[in-house]
């Protein structure tokens, strides 16, 4: 009969009208500034630089290899390499960035910098509300603004950060073991080379 479909549809909207008062399934709205959905663990917004230890300048993991700068699709990263070197987390002397700028107004949150980074130095933040009224440079983040502690990284991406830490610790252990072995070998060698001299004495 003419009108059947219309009545069916009206029944459906009526169901939703009343349903929205009782069912959370139907009324999915989250009233944003007052209540927030907790960020998913994988969520990504904009990149930041990880540092270990208390001093961000000393602990920055970035060795200024500039791979991310090259791979960044919108080319929003600018890195200036240092002239001198400073020891990294395993104690090996490395370059460090004297300038590391990310223009977040250009960044498209694609995470490719994170993927290509061999040093786990750049990670994605979950903070997305970065609006500013300064159009020229308000979103140009420099090293100071980008540097976030490893603890912060643990707080936003716990699983991932634990994995990274384990990997780094493993590498460090390997390097240390190697260094120890090398040192022992050197000591042994020294001992060997020293012994004739001793004997000579």
């Amino acid at each position, binding site marked *: 009969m*003419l*009108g*059947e*479909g*219309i009545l*069916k*549809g009206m*029944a*459906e*909207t009526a169901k*939703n009208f009343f349903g929205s008062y009782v069912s959370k*399934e*139907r009324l*999915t709205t989250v009233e944003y500034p007052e209540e927030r959905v907790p960020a*998913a*663990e*994988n*969520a*990504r917004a904009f990149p930041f630089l990880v540092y270990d230890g208390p001093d961000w300048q000393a602990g920055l993991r970035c060795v200024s290899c500039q*791979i991310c700068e090259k*791979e*960044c*699709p919108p080319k929003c990263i600018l890195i200036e390499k240092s002239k001198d070197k400073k020891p990294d987390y395993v104690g090996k002397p490395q370059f460090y960035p004297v300038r590391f700028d990310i223009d977040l107004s250009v960044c*498209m*949150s*694609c*995470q*490719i910098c994170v*993927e*290509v980074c*061999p040093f786990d130095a750049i990670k*994605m933040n979950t903070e997305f509300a970065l609006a500013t009224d300064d159009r020229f440079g308000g979103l140009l983040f420099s090293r100071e603004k980008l540097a976030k502690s490893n603890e912060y990284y643990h707080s936003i991406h716990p699983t991932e950060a634990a994995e990274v830490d384990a990997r780094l610790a493993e590498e460090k252990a390997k390097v240390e073991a190697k260094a120890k072995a090398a040192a022992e070998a050197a000591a042994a060698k020294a001992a060997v080379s020293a012994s004739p001299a001793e004997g000579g004495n």
Partner: protein
Amino acid sequence: MSSGVQTKPEQLEGWNRPPVIAPEGEGELLEVAMGPHHPSTHGVFRMDVTLDGERVIGLKPVFGYLHRNHEKIAEQTSYLASMPYTDRLDYFCSLTNNWAYALAVEKLAGLDAPERAQYIRVILAELTRIQNHASAVGFLLQDMGASGTPLMYAFREREKILDLFEQLTGARMMCNFMRFGGCRVDATAGWLDGARKMVAGLPNFVDEFEALLSTNEILMARTQGVGVLKPDLAVNTGVSGPMLRASGVDYDLRKVDHYGIYDRFQFRVPLGEHGDIYDRYMVRVLEMRESIRILEQALKDVPAGPVMDPKAKSRGFRPKPGEAYGRIEAPKGELGFYLISDGTPNPYRYRVRPPSLINLTILEDMCLGHDVADVVLIFGSVDIVLGEVDR
């Protein structure tokens, strides 16, 4: 450069132009520019419509307002760096765009995604298809004047699917998830459980969605017999996706090309008979049901294993010289990527075959002789995203 050589349509053999519709009686014709700022052009799109009263006797689509030369950008960056740009083609279905591009590069470089990655890809692609079809139908009904109710129902479900995407890929729309030879991260058991729970609720949603308007007399009167596209013309025009199947042509790349692991799943391809707007609407709704079936099967047994081909590498990726054309059944139609490699880290030629653009070829033919109100519906039933049309 001159604007090229113009040949009159009637001089061309096989040129399947629509019949020229003459205005009735006397009086002036009305030329209306629908767009670029118009409530139902789904973005910045213009249709220069010539009207005789309310009857359309001419229509020229005009686009390019969103053109950013995506292909040129891709030719100037590495293969990997184009991946996030593909998200922005059809921003409703970034994951299928990812897949199409990854598929083309895999073909170009001879990579293969491992089993588990294939499953995850299928799950994500079908979720994408459901949310795209739901919103496409919602937008179509919105164009019909249904005050956004169906659209809001579609968005309600889309919200849940996007939540899943965010949990897995980190972003809701610009997922940038697939990689050449696999997926970027693995799906956790918790995520798969969440997806199962979500999928279990989907049939309910489709039922509700159908009850709302599928048999509504107004909808049937508005859409049946309007914007008819005959199957042979559809094939000749390169129309693809639900629009082609609504015209009754059995051509679903998931069945034809056997890409991914679609061979393993039981699903049917719904076909329309009349090729009108109602068929396009219903084919989309029925495809959602089939997608749910695929999802149920895919989520049942996701094998364990790695998600990346061990041969694949993210840095210094240089495929051998050659070319490849990879295409998948994206929600909007056949999405293809044509790549030529010259052995350098950047593709020599990178081409997107945008289903939205090519499905628009036939827009004028479908609209001629109908009312201006129908133009909006026919356009809505094509289901385009301007990000993909203009690239």
